[in-house]
């Protein structure tokens, strides 16, 4: 039997959940530099579900694909520490400015090269927050999609049973392989790093990273080829330039405004009996309550 190939799509994102004062520049644009870059939270749930699928199938491998700048290689190392077998960094200036349609086009070209049986991705990324890349990638590779998945119920080499978390309940579905699954943040959290794997892979690098460290002449990859993280460009995946980047994106950002808090005149009170009494009397008098 051939190994089942499981692919995880993971994105490196700025941590928008902890936006401090220095995160916004004076001109109202976002200062990405001031935000730590993290593993998109839902994608960690997706990685876990992929690893669970591998655990249950036995005869399977988990690959990770991330599209982003050089530093996004961190996502691949992190995935490998937690149990993924191998990763690919999809990186090219031509991807810059891609909307979800262009992003899913690029990802779908890489997916075709990997040729997986199953794809797990996050429901949504916390920066763009559109939840569109999963379904769009599924359409482009012609896989059925199962979104909002909370639990892997059962898996065999030919089909998968999944529980979906919807607004007002749950639904269990059976799908044949191949399929693309988007994983909800309420799914199992990702297992911790495996210390042995951290020791083994902490020197894993892309060629560009080695160059940045002025070590391109080191014997690293010759001695330990498994430490090489593959970098794929537009050419590697044979993508059509016109479908990428700003020019390949049908959505255009016309304007961006920062959110300004207009200070309201307010009445400041304490928790004292007198103050709370005043508050309730005020509300009753003005007929807001009662």
């Amino acid at each position: 039997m051939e190994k089942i190939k499981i692919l995880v799509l993971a994105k490196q994102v700025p941590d928008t959940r902890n936006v401090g004062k220095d995160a916004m520049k004076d001109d109202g644009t976002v200062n990405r530099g001031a935000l730590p870059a993290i593993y998109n939270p839902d994608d960690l749930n997706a990685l876990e579900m992929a690893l669970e699928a591998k655990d249950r199938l036995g005869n399977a491998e988990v690959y990770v694909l991330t599209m982003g700048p050089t530093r996004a290689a961190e996502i691949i190392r992190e995935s490998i520490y937690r149990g993924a077998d191998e990763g690919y960094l999809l990186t090219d200036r031509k991807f810059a400015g891609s909307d979800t349609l262009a992003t899913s086009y690029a990802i779908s070209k890489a997916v075709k090269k990997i040729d997986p049986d199953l794809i797990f991705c996050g429901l949504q990324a916390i920066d763009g927050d559109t939840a569109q890349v999963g379904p769009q990638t599924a359409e482009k590779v012609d896989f059925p999609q199962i979104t909002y998945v909370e639990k892997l119920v059962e898996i065999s080499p030919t089909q998968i049973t999944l529980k979906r978390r919807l607004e007002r309940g749950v639904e269990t579905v059976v799908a044949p392989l191949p399929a693309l699954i988007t994983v909800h943040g309420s799914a199992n959290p990702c297992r911790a790093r495996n210390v042995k794997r951290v020791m083994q892979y902490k020197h894993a690098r892309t060629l560009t990273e080695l160059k940045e460290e002025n070590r391109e002449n080191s014997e690293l990859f010759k001695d330990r080829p498994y430490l090489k993280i593959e970098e794929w460009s537009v050419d590697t995946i044979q993508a059509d330039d016109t479908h990428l980047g700003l020019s390949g994106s049908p959505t255009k950002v016309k304007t961006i405004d920062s959110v300004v808090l207009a200070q309201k005149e307010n009445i400041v009170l304490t928790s004292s009996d007198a103050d709370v009494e005043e508050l309730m009397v005020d509300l009753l008098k003005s007929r807001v309550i009662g």
Partner: protein
Amino acid sequence: MKNVFVYCEVTEEKRIAEVSLELLSKGRKLAETLGVKLEAVVLTDQAGDTLETIQEFGVDVIHLAESVELFPYRTLPHFRVVQAIFEKEQPEIALFGATSVGRDLAPRIASVLRCGLTADCTSLEIGDHVDTKTGKEYKNMLYQIRPAFGGNIIATIINPETRPQMATVREGVMKLEKADKKKVAQIKNYKVEEILKPEDLVITIIDRHIEPQKVNLKGAGIIVSGGYGVGSKENFKLLYDLAAVLGGEVAATRAAVDAGYAEHERQVGQTGVTVRPKLYIACGISGAVQHRAGMDQSAKIISINTDPNAPINAIADYAVTGDLMEVLPKMIAYYKKYSK
């Protein structure tokens, strides 16, 4: 051709979802501005009286596909039918609810039609655009306005070259307004069995537990809302007590929902429900921009927070600095005392 289309979601109770009715209301205004028609798309097993509801919103054409394969919702059958309708009708604008159905379906449609899709719009307007590079002028674009980057910025997005201009909108964002006059819509029926292929039916639903909507935040005049500062599910009981005496509903922030203090359907904000009550009492809520996005239209806001500098205070009419565990029982006591 060139009309405004709204995908109408059918709920578990076989009614048209609120969000779809809100979009029909908005869609009618957009169609009026553009001088085009408003068209609804309904995919279900049996339409029954759902069409009656739609007629109240001034719809010109209803595209109706009825088949057992179309209820309950599954991605591929709906995808295939909507694709067929859009390819034939070439909509100018297509709107979907930002629900687990709309967010599943709309991106797949946008992908196959290769058109732009803007997620979670908080406002839709018609306006012109000049491309600064080419100088090319575009008339009557759909401005798709959405928060992004964790809600810290508001972006206006347009799709100059591709059609339809697609957008998703969350429930509660657009106002629900019936048309002044009821219109009799033309109904176009589709033969579903001629559109669907066997590979569209590969996914089977083996189990479903969908509960009727229990909490009605949007209809509540008074909302007592709790944040992470409430501290526990047990402490949330105080909020229920206050809501009960005031005749209101209990809501929560995402942090409180994530911590398990309250159910997801009570979440207010960018990724929850948008509310406009006459009174919103924010207890132990810091006031993150994503939360404010769902409640800052409330007529009156009271904030109860131990931190006098909590950002929520900036939009509050009354800012009570203090421990909510102390303040809430006092509010209940004084309410009882003065309301007779």
